[in-house]
């Protein structure tokens, strides 16, 4: 009947993409060189770790939960890797161990949340404190990663030179790869669809025979893995580990997911949206750096306003679709 009509569920993600291009256009018009490919690529380089963390956050939010331990796990992973390399361990082992810890920790959080029906907010909050403290136990000070073969190899040999002075760095490729896997996982696999079903209505999902517990624990495990991977990327990006870094990064990740068009109540949204959410956050920062006159604190305020705008839009859409389903 209404074949030509634009589906309602694509509105938020289209709005995100629109916001991205509008902000990008503003940048190009206002500043020379803003449109240069280097600026665009740097957007990915600077935000690859945030993007990977946001993928995990997006999946968790889709189940109707929340993960606040992201920033702490990133800091912990980076300092753990730096410390292990400093004490003479092979970087690959360090990375593997860090990822394993991330996975186990995510699993533990999911287990606590599901098996004892504790609020996700509280469990991941405690997780945040716990991992942050663990980071300080590893080392209270920043440790640089110097002269490591693996890191040098990643830095120098694992980047594709697109043209002169323009490199597609490994962390960017890794981010894109993880993103594509996550998109396929969430849209094309049974487990991915289960995530949506649980986020929309957990009781209905249980009654339908969807393995709710397994899916939820798996989602938090993936989130833990994504956070740990983000930590690895962060260590590669900074070539250092610092237990103090990434305080409050979980809020940036959540903001990126919300700006990316995902409903915080769960069940609605796309992992793909988190890409544009992250890019919009990055663009705003780049714009303010380019301008140089504006107080950098405006970043926080603008991000806050953007989150607000998207929340309003989501609310409106939910109301419209509800009234539609009633009228049918």
């Amino acid at each position: 009947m209404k074949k030509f009509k634009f589906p309602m569920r694509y509105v938020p993600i289209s709005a995100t993409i629109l916001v991205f291009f509008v902000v990008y256009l503003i940048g190009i018009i206002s500043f020379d060189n803003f449109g240069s490919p280097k600026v665009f690529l740097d957007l990915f380089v600077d935000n690859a770790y945030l993007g990977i963390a946001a993928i995990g956050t997006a999946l968790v939010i889709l189940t109707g939960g929340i993960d606040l331990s992201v920033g702490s796990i990133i800091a912990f992973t980076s300092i753990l890797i730096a410390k292990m390399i400093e004490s003479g361990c092979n970087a690959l082992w360090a990375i593997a161990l860090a990822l394993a810890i991330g996975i186990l920790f995510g699993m533990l959080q999911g287990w606590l949340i599901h098996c004892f029906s504790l609020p996700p907010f509280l469990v991941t909050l405690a997780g945040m404190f716990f991992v942050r403290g663990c980071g300080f136990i590893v080392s209270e000070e920043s440790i640089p990663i110097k002269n490591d073969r693996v890191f040098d190899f990643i830095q120098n040999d694992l980047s594709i030179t697109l043209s002169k002075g323009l490199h597609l760095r490994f962390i960017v490729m890794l981010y894109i790869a993880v993103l594509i896997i996550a998109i396929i996982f969430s849209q094309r696999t049974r487990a991915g669809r289960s995530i949506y079903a649980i986020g929309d209505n957990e009781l209905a999902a249980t009654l339908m025979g969807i393995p709710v517990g397994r899916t939820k624990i798996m989602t938090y495990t993936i989130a833990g893995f994504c956070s740990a991977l983000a930590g690895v990327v962060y260590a590669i990006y900074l070539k250092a580990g610092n237990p103090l870094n990434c305080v409050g990064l979980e809020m940036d990740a959540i903001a990126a997911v919300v700006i990316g068009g995902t409903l915080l109540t769960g069940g609605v949204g796309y992992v793909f949206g988190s890409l544009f959410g992250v890019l919009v956050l990055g663009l705003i920062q780049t714009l303010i750096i380019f301008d140089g006159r504006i107080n950098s604190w405006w970043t926080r305020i603008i991000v806050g306003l953007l989150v607000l705008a998207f929340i309003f839009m989501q609310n409106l859409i939910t109301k419209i679709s509800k009234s539609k389903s009633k009228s049918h």
Partner: protein
Amino acid sequence: MNKTSNRFRHLVWPLVSLALLLLFNAFFTDNFFKIEIKKQDSAQTVQAPAVPDNPPAPGTSWITPENYENSSDSAEAAAKTVDQAGQAAQAAAEPQQAPEKNDGKGVSIFGYYLYGTPIDILNQGAKVMVLAIGMTLVIATGGIDISVGAVMAIAGAIAALLISMLDAGSFPGASMGPAIYWIIPVVAALVLATLAGFWNGMLVAGFGIQPMVATLVLMVAGRGVAQLITDGQIITFDNPGLVFLCNGHALFLPFSVWIVVTMYVVAGLLTRKTALGLFIESVGNNERASRYAGIEARRIKWLTYVICGFCAGVAGLLAASNIKCADSNNAGLYLELDAILATVIGGTSMAGGRFFLSGSLVGAILIQTLTTTMYMKNVSPAIVAVPKAMVVIIVCLLQSPVFRAKVLSIFASKAAKGGVQ
């Protein structure tokens, strides 16, 4: 009997945890429970013979016993000095000592105050206790406010900005003198924080946005606003009135404790002696049903966010007063989480519908006691988070009905097996 035990059942686990913690301290921390009564004029009397010979000396020695507490506690409201003066043994020494008193101590109305670790816990925990009062009411309606830390930063920033402008004489009211005009920033901070609460309430109750999401906005933007207010600077101040809030003493105890007590009593009376508490619980239980029953559900929700904003304002003032400056980046950082933890530890359900103000206070004290214990055991402040997180999970598990049922069923099955054999 049964009724009272039910009424206080929510307090059992937090109190048991607190008792265990205190017991640990009683055995393993030296002087943990040592509470001294400091008497200001006693020091003065002891030193008194020296007064005639060497006027500056009593001043310095007079301050010394206090140095390890907070030597830079600057000045005190003039009225309080008069009280101290009244108690002073040597009237002759008075004129010389008056300025010294103003400078050195801070302090109590009647010349006595308690001093010791437990008192310190109360003083340091005051911020979280105040926050927890507001947070409890919000959580009782089934909501949550994760912006209180940012609101604290805003309140501290505006107070510090105004006091620095008043000190510089560039704000109307400067002519009243520092002893009085500190009220202006306090009022301004409270008004602004209440407005922030009003904004949250508008988003949640007015527009029907999910509470966690609605308050996320202010949480993200709030610190930016605070930074704009202070222009990214850390503004320091030493106005006696403002510093007194968290560093002064009155009636034996730190003044901040009295602020907590006042707010607790007012909140308790409001919720338990009027219908408001019932309304809040009813809205938290079932909003739609309450609306059908004739309760203005939206207005009740709105009100709880306004109260929470006000509490955040008070906590922001305490935080700024404690360190005598407004640090927009770190003021109240993670305190929203502490406040939520305190509330949940106190037995208030995150799902709403039930609340226990007393439990929240015990929860806040438990968190602070744990922190202080760690500090006294020379644990690095950064690592304190680890045991804190463990305690949180343990207390949450103990309060989780599912966990209790599972543990009970394990015991039950073991008992059954034992019976069979």
